[in-house]
């Protein structure tokens, strides 16, 4: 697990936290959000491709539903997932309440609409000329699709980052389904940076909350930089 640079963070900023608290919290944040966004991307991009390449009655309605999903309040998503995984809910026997799995579920639901919608916009936005050129050059439907995806890759990367941004910064649903749990030694089990910030704010410790907020922003910045850099390298290699 490449956590060394992250583990150094608390030493640099000197926080009033116990050893391992911040690094384990960052780890849980990243683990939950990255897993959720990865699953979400695997689901959303194919859906966006299908929507982008086919026409069917009710397509506008589907798009409207996806766009509405982007504005879904995270607390409501949290409650829906809670009802699902709670002991009384359909997934109750799996005992997922207050686990990272439940948090991944709720973030999956939150990240999927923006990733789908922005990917779809990127795919639809690829100029007709490009599609026509691919067809003229004798491309099959699959070839045309691949060309379009290649052209739309920046848009899709933006979609993934938007989904990641939504997932890692939301507090409502992970608090409800995760429970904001640490061990008695302060090692995070289901505490993320956002729920840690919420906890500090609840106690009126606004300064430490701000420091954690700064760590969260830095983390998102790093992830964005990595994805953008990755995108650039791809472009150079081609």
């Amino acid at each position, binding site marked *: 697990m490449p956590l060394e640079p992250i583990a150094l963070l608390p030493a640099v900023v000197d926080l009033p936290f116990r050893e391992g608290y911040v690094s384990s919290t960052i780890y849980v944040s990243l683990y939950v959000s990255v897993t959720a966004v990865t699953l979400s991307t695997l689901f959303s991009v194919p859906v966006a491709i299908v929507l982008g390449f086919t026409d069917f009655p009710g397509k506008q309605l589907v798009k409207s539903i996806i766009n509405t999903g982007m504005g879904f309040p995270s607390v409501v998503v949290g409650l829906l997932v809670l009802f699902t995984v709670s002991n009384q809910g359909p997934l109750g*026997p799996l005992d997922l309440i*207050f686990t990272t799995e439940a948090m991944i579920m709720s973030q999956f639901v939150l990240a999927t609409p923006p990733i789908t919608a922005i990917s779809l916009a990127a795919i639809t936005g690829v100029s007709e000329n490009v599609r026509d050129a691919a067809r003229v050059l004798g491309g099959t439907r699959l070839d045309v699709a691949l060309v379009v995806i290649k052209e739309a890759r920046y848009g899709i990367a933006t979609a993934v980052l938007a989904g990641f941004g939504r997932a890692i910064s939301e507090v409502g649903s992970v608090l409800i389904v995760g429970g904001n749990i640490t061990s008695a030694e302060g090692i995070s089990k289901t505490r993320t940076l956002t729920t840690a910030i919420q906890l500090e704010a609840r106690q009126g410790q606004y300064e430490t909350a701000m420091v954690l907020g700064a760590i969260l922003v830095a983390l998102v910045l790093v992830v964005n930089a990595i994805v953008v850099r990755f995108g650039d390298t791809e472009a150079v290699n081609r």
Partner: protein
Amino acid sequence: MTIQRRDFMKAIGVGAVASTAGCSQLGGSDADRPDVAGESLTLTTTTSTYDTGLLDEIHPDFEEMYGVTVDAVAQGTGAALESARNGDSDVVMVHARGLEDEFMRNGYGVNRRDLMFNDFVIVGPESDPAGIQGTASATEALTTIAEAEAPFVSRGDNSGTHTKELNLWEAAGIDPGGDWYQETGSGMGEALNIANQQGAYTLSDRGTFISQRSEIDLTILVQGPIEDGPEILANPYGIMAVNPGVHDNANYDLAMAYIGWITSPGAQDAISDYQMNGEQLFFPEAVSEDPDFQQYVPEGWSSDSSDQ
């Protein structure tokens, strides 16, 4: 400690070990571990027990004793009981007797024990615009605040503190409302900060107030019973196991082990020893020479009454 014990055991020989077999879990190889080892207990509790750091301080003792982990979820009394009602927790530690009684009457909670107490205090700005300082009665103080329409911050979150506040207003015969009465829907720390910024009064548990006092300008204007204030401001905490007859997946064995441990003299001493800023936050009350049957049943319950 454990290691030393084991070495000592070796030194005095096998026969001696056999004769002290009752103590063998102290020696603790994995094979000797109780069956619950590795399991986790979900405790839903209030923000005041969690945010003061009490649970993190005392839980390692229990976790080591049974080889388990305690997942403490700090939710506030209303939400903690709701999680338990849904079968999502094994044991609840809360501070609103009325809600606890309802929980027991509905069959969700069993084996309730009185655990510990501290008290509530009415805090406000030093200037004390409504002039409640020195009032001996909490309800009278609230009446004075309401008559002066001095700003008052309410938790408004169905927590134990909020429940107590509503009970106090009811006892004072006042239905609070108007611009001066603000429901924040936030935790105690935030509510204290809001009251601080607005020069408002609020009801706080003593523990949270002590832990934040250095950062805010509010002062205690009506003391609770710990400092000889009115008994109505008492803040007792109770603990209950989730009824395995209602939720068969509740970890009842471990819940009862936890209740047994936390009401034992050792853990009660640890609660008593826990301090913040040099002040004791919680006063244990589980260990007592005299019987106290009312802790096991809804308040006022008796087998003679028609009440089930």
